[in-house]
């Protein structure tokens, strides 16, 4: 009787959450909101008024949820160039090999003739911030570039010495301009407005990038750069009044996220995430009374064209997420039944990545389907770590690649944050590549493909030394002996301390030492893509006639794909596993969009259950070849870490044990 009453009470208590879930799922799937031209004008005008009040003329960018640049407005007097600066590196000199993007200066006037130096254009910073606000957010979480700042530093939280690095350490180098997944604005192309779009500098950690919502539905982001610096915030215990952030915040008036999903209501490891430091009450203007856009356009500032991002100095409407023209829509053939995910489509509404057999002849299309289906099932049953209301299911993107890095399947839950699309693919490829015995040789061979800009510009870092370092650190056969590296394992070796957070220790072999390390200078991850990013910056400046080619890294292309195994760069935070067929490496399964433990679990259990369902010998790496059998420098590597209370409707607390 008591037990019955207890269950009854529990059932009644669960009711609101269940109802919320029921209402949320169709709401997110069905509610198709987009920013109109007039709304983009309103956002810009509100931000510009605040910038004027602050005496900080700004460059303001607005994007939609899938990263289309809807408008870029430069106020008169706004800096047109910015310093990329972490504030950590000693000295002001720029040096690609030593400092990466930190203190980046690019040559103006063409290569190699005119060595005039200038900084990075501010509009790239503003776009990167807007994309970040849009991409990190969803119907269940509203994150900003300040949130990003908190989760990419060497401790989480930064300043709490001894703690491991931020959970999304390395996410700043995703959505890269050279990514093969992210689409580009070319002009006159059928794919011009499908998402997800690339970001010129990856994701931003500089406060001043916020998401935009309409009726609780995420519709885009705003990014502001007024202070001439594209940086990070190394002290998060204080309360800053960042001009960039306050200007962007003014722009969001009328387009705010629901209070309950803002970052400061969401905890990771018991720590709330930052949304903005100061709120609307600290604004110096009432955005509702801002002058209309028509009144400021051409006087206070002007719309500008950004090469590679829009066609003209004009405003375009946003694309409604979930509709084919956004490039993301529901999967309609039922191939992943019983789950009903979304997929990426091209400008002709064709699924860009339907399941297919591996280019290496290992996995079949059916096996690829099963991996992704099972991973999605885990997500729909799982407890989200970064979403509200509480006990929401997990929303992520799942990518499966083969040993060549070719995408065999890609699908996402309806409301997964957009950043996870590119990141899940980076993770899948990273696991597949670093578990592949060809990795060491492929990385060494890349150095021959790196072209420096020539004197007086500094040379790019070379990749070979990283292989030397990891083989000295882990063992002489590292990256050539077929040990299975989950992304968590490789991430262990990519931190400025080994083990992660132990600040008296040496760096991991894929990391820069802490003396020069910064979120703009992480080591192998950046050095693999930096030449392409610089090329892209030169393209936006009109200095380079051609954009960076598709495919980020200098590795040799594989014969099967014409691209390298890691053509959108590698990722160094957890959420992927290599997959095997009868003990032979078959590819990688990557997941991104929720907490890293959730991402880990979905990839690991997706691989496990995909194997059980297919019953064809596919699945996870055998336990005896996983990276957690290695103890470099006496400290064991991790493989995956599955989360506490993983599922909404179960007491299970050890979902991955023994698998």
């Amino acid at each position, binding site marked *: 009787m008591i037990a019955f009453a207890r269950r009854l009470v529990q059932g009644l208590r669960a009711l609101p959450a269940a109802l919320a879930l029921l209402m949320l799922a169709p709401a997110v799937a069905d509610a198709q909101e987009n920013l109109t031209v007039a709304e983009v004008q309103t956002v810009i005008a509100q931000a510009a008024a605040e910038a004027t009040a602050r005496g900080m003329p700004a460059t303001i960018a607005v994007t939609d949820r899938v990263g289309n640049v809807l408008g870029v407005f430069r106020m008169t007097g706004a800096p047109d160039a910015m310093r990329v600066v972490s504030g950590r590196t000693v000295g002001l000199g720029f040096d690609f090999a030593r400092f990466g993007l930190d203190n980046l200066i690019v040559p103006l006037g063409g290569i190699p003739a005119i060595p005039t130096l200038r900084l990075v254009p501010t509009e790239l910073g503003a776009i990167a911030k807007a994309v970040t606000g849009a991409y990190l957010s969803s119907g269940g979480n509203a994150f900003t570039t300040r949130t990003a700042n908190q989760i990419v530093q060497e401790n989480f939280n930064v300043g709490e010495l001894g703690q491991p690095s931020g959970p999304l350490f390395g996410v700043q180098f995703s959505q890269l301009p050279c990514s093969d997944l992210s689409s580009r604005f070319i002009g006159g192309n059928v794919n011009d407005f499908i998402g997800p779009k690339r970001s010129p500098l990856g994701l931003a950690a500089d406060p001043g990038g916020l998401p935009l919502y309409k009726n609780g539905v995420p519709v885009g982001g705003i990014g502001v750069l007024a202070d001439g610096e594209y940086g990070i915030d190394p002290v998060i215990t204080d309360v800053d009044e960042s001009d960039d952030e306050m200007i962007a915040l003014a722009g969001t008036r009328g387009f705010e996220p629901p209070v309950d999903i803002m970052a400061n209501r969401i905890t990771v490891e018991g720590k*709330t995430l930052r949304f903005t430091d100061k709120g609307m009450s600290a604004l110096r203007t009432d955005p509702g009374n801002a002058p209309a856009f028509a009144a400021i356009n051409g006087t206070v500032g002007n719309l500008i064209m950004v090469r590679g991002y829009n066609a003209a100095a004009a405003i375009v409407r946003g694309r409604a997420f979930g509709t084919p023209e956004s490039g993301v829509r529901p999967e309609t053939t039922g191939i992943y039944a019983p789950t009903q995910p979304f997929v990426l489509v091209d400008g002709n509404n064709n699924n860009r990545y339907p399941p297919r057999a591996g280019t290496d002849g290992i996995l079949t299309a059916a096996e690829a389907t099963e991996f992704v289906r099972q991973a999605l099932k885990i997500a729909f049953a799982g407890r989200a770590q970064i979403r509200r209301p509480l006990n929401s299911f997990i929303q992520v993107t799942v990518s499966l690649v083969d040993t060549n890095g070719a995408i065999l399947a890609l699908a996402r839950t309806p409301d997964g944050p957009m950043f996870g699309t590119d990141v899940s693919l980076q993770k899948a490829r990273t696991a597949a590549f670093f578990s592949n015995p060809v990795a060491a040789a492929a990385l060494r061979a890349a150095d021959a493909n790196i072209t420096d800009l020539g004197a007086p510009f500094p040379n790019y870092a070379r990749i070979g030394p990283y292989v030397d370092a990891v083989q000295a650190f882990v063992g002489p056969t590292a990256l050539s002996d077929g040990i299975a590296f989950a992304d968590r394992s490789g991430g262990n070796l990519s931190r400025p301390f080994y083990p992660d957070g132990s600040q008296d220790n040496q760096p991991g072999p894929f990391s820069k030492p802490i003396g020069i390390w910064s979120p703009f200078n992480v080591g192998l991850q950046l050095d693999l893509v930096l030449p392409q990013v610089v090329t892209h910056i030169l393209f936006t400046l009109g200095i380079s006639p051609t954009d960076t080619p598709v495919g980020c890294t200098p590795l040799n292309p594989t014969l099967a794909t014409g691209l390298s195994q890691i053509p959108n760069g590698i990722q160094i935070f957890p959420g992927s596993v290599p997959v095997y067929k009868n003990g032979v490496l078959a590819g990688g399964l990557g997941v991104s969009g929720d907490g890293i433990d959730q991402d880990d679990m979905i990839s690991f259990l997706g691989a496990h259950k995909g194997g059980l369902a297919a019953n064809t010998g596919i699945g996870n790496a055998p336990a005896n070849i996983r990276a*957690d059998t290695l103890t470099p420098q006496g400290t064991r590597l991790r493989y995956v870490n599955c989360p*506490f209370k993983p599922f909404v409707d179960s007491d299970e607390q050890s979902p991955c044990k023994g698998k």
Partner: protein
Amino acid sequence: MQWFRSLTVVSLLLTPLAAEAGKERFSLPAGYGTGNKGVEVAQQRRPGSQPRYQAPVEIDPDAVPPPNPNLPQDFIPIPDRWRLIEAVGVNEKWWDPYNQNTLKGDRPIFDDWFVNIVVISDTIYEPRTFPIPVGIQTTKRAGSLDTFGDTSTEVFNTNLITSLQFIKGNTAYKPPDYEIRITPVFNYNKVWADELRVLRIQPERGDERSDRFIGWQELFLDYHIRNVSDRYDFDSIRVGIQPFSTDFRGFLFQDNQAGIRLFGTRDNNIFQYNLAYFRKLEKDTNSGLNDLTEDIRDDELFIANLYWQDMPVLGFVSQATVVHNRNREKDNFYFNNNGFLERPASLGDERQRDYDVTYFGFNGDGHFGRFNLTVSGYYAFGKDSHNVFSGVEDSDIRAWFVAAEPSVDFSWIRIRGSLMYASGDDDPFDDREEGFDAPFENPQFAGADTSYWIRQTIPLIGGGGVILSGRNAMFPALRSSKEQGQSNFNNPGLTLIGLGTDIDITPEIRLSTNFNRLDFVDTASLEFLRNQGEIDEGIGWDLSAALIWRPLFIQNIVFRLSGAVLLPDQGFKDLYRVNDDSEDFFYSVLANMVLTY
């Protein structure tokens, strides 16, 4: 020491001067003086009481006269009154605290200064289990793929408590005039775990830790200001590191801390009062002892209380108290000796904060006829400069707590109940913090360190660098630690309902049992910290038993063996792994040996 008096009388009688001097204070035996009252009946003297006399003895005029007190041949040289007993052949043994012993304050070392040396060896061995996460960055074993790791740890801890007391004044009849007390404690501790990053933040430093420390648990001067009545009601002041408890059971503050305390009694000890100021010393992380090598903390307590004996009935003591806790550690960023952040707690938005909280309390202890009762209640009222959950500045603190322990004795069996409620916070996003927390609890309640919940540290895995329930603590305060952390009023609160027994099986052996039911009051704060919905309130059943053996019937040699199990209920299962490898409970075993000199 009662016999001192008669001996003194005799010795004083041996000299005429002394006899003269003593006339006013001592009545001479009948027959030598006026002789009309008779011999005074030996009885306890109280101020204002009239002496009673035996009927006068008639003196036979023919009897042989008594010896002349001034005759030299009757004079026995005595070194001083304290050593008379040696003259009759009773010599002290320095190792025997039960008989006359200079080292135990029975004889002065000079003038009327006494020394008392106390040495206590307190050693524990404690195997236990509680939820432990695997290291985030590395694990002890391959194949550790989940968050929860091996639960077992063992502790060996030994304290050598050495107390040196210097006391001026007659210790037998009245409060001493001065007391100086110095109590260094020599600690050695060692812990074995089965996962990395539990004992130290650096996972590469292994799964064992040993440490040693010398802490200063008492270091004070006590000055007896004055007596205010014939019954030795007094005012005293005590300055330095001293023990203090705000109530009978250590619910709010029981610790040895640096402070100044004015205290005394009135109306024949019916009233006792304390006016105290304490400022917290930093605690050594692994021994829990006072660390004088660290800066003193900016955490202060202002305490006023009044005890009223026999109120409302004979045998019951009531106490009212006001305690103000002023914390100014907003500028603090303090890591403990193991590298974990203590202040601010690694929790919420992790911004530093100050707080002011005032506790209004009522406490009672005693018995109503055969029924024993201890009660305690506090209302906490104050401001937190920054609410780390909601981000609200100047958040209100409103929390309360009540506890009661009724018991009744049946010959050699005591049966007692334990009832406790500590309020919980129901909305982490508002501007009110409604979970009860105490500045430094040390609850002697519901089994105390015998019980699993009170004894063991239970980390809130995945919910921040805080512990759900601290060591020797009851409130689920979600603070970094009881010893070094700040109070946290954003917590789930607790109810405890328990039934226990104390059974004196023989005079040497006592068996205590405790059977406690534990529930959170409101899990909103836990749900927020873990981003996990519907965490049940039920913590579980805490069953424990303790066997205390005093082989020689004395408190100087005490052995204690206790064991406890926590049978987790749904709330605990929502938070932790409890059903793995058929291990569906957590345990705590405590073997303790206390030797006292």
